């Protein structure tokens, strides 16, 4: 199916998306439009389909039904212009690889080359590492880093190719409470040049830096402002939620009955 032409400021367009895993519906009738420059946070309970939605946008999974257009083309074609920071930064920690080589993976595929190392690619690797403050760690083995350092290394890897869109899956999970404000400042800085879509299951992770919020729990509820209302949460979550954000007092929602 040929993607339809779209207005230039829309970078991700999801229409009527459905996805099932082993006959079990994960996402149903999802519609989402992300504009260039947005800082969108996708919240929702574990197993609500947030990670699946990111993988569909990256072209790692084929949509069951509906359509996804990324940067005016198919997700697979757009993937090299999208930066991805995966959820499980802790897997493969025993792997014999230096921090420098992990970030170098981010320059793979530039210009269709996989098997050569060019001076421009090396410069881009260094720039991304310096930007994330991990250049000094380059000689360390990946397993020696703390969770927060790892997170910065994986963001540096995603930044090497100067992506137009940055997708982060549970990026704040391994950062302690003190580091979070600083981390959001960093994302806000990155947001000046890239559209950001970040996924989290924890509403504690929200910040004034966020421009819009969508809740994913099989269906998607988009809210065009950087705040979450109790109604939005109640629509998205089927479980009690702690909510501390934007002056909404700490509260716990009632269990939502199954429909």
């Amino acid at each position, binding site marked *: 199916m040929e993607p339809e032409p779209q207005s230039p400021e829309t970078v991700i367009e999801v229409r009527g998306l459905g996805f099932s895993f082993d006959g079990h519906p994960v996402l149903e009738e999802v519609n989402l439009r992300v504009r260039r420059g947005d800082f969108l946070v996708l919240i929702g309970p574990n197993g609500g389909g947030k990670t699946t939605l990111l993988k569909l946008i990256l072209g790692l999974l084929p949509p069951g039904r509906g359509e996804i257009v990324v940067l005016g083309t198919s997700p697979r074609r757009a*993937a090299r212009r999208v930066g991805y920071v995966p959820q499980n930064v802790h897997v493969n920690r025993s792997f014999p690889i230096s921090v420098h080589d992990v970030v170098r993976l981010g320059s793979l595929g530039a210009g269709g080359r996989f098997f050569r190392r060019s001076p421009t690619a090396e410069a881009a690797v260094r720039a991304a590492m310096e930007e994330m403050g991990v250049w000094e760690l380059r000689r360390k*083995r990946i397993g020696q880093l703390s969770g927060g350092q790892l997170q910065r290394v994986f963001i540096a890897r995603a930044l090497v190719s100067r992506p137009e869109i940055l997708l982060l899956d549970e990026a704040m999970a391994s950062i302690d409470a003190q580091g979070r404000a600083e981390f959001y400042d960093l994302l806000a800085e990155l947001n000046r040049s890239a559209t950001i879509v970040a996924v989290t299951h924890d509403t504690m992770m929200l910040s004034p830096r966020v421009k819009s919020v969508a809740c994913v729990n099989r269906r998607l509820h988009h809210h065009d402002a950087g705040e979450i209302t109790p109604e939005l949460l109640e629509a998205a979550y089927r479980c009690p939620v702690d909510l501390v954000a934007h002056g909404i007092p700490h509260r716990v929602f009632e269990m939502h009955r199954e429909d």
Partner: protein
Amino acid sequence: MIDALQMEFMRHALLAGLLVSLVCGVIGTLVVVNRIVFLAGGIAHAAYGGIGLAIFLGWPFLAGTLGVALAAAAAMAAVTLRARHRADAVVGVIWAVGMAAGVVLIDLTPGYRSDLMSYLFGSILAVPAAELAEMAAVAALVVAVVAAGYPGFLAMSYDPEFARIRGVPVAALYVLMLALIAASVVIVIRVVGLILVIALLTIPPFIAESFSGSLRGMMVRASVLSALFTVSGLLLSYALDLTSGATIILVAAAGFGGALLWRRLFPGRPVQAG
């Protein structure tokens, strides 16, 4: 010991051991970091069916064995790529069927008296010069292919999902890796036997992993360790008049135990890149 080197069969055995070490160090590293030891074992045992088939049909050893090993590798690649959660069981089936088919085909071959032990533990002390040349060719091919595709193999092994996003042909590299395993296993089985192949594919890379800062460094260390175990095992078996393949494995196992002890006594020693 010096007089041992005077004998041609011993020189051949040492050379074969070094070539096997090179192949196993490089391929074994990929096997260990990709966590496909079971799959490599499956390919090795399926190759056994190839040995039986070659003997039964009167084909040249290499054609029959390599053909069956590559077919098994292709089947395993297809299953692993499509239905990862079913892969374990299917590999187990191919493993058992390959081995059983090999034994039955040899039973059915009129007048052929097989010595099962020689295929299990190989006959490193009886390597003809022609087979050394074959092994050298396969070793050169394996090292050249892995070196040429190194960044791709590294990306696939470390983070296949990210590699796919960057446009790396992960599925093709995976199939190529299994084909390289099949080719290596076939050529190595002929000389050192099935059990030694699996031991050398796993023990040296496993020891090397915790002492290496890069995949390349792990390959080099695994090859060196493998050579160390093979040569010392060979000389020990000569001195004590023991089965060479089994002695090499026990020496490697002792090295494995020593490495575990070392890591326990000196934990968290920083590893530099390289």
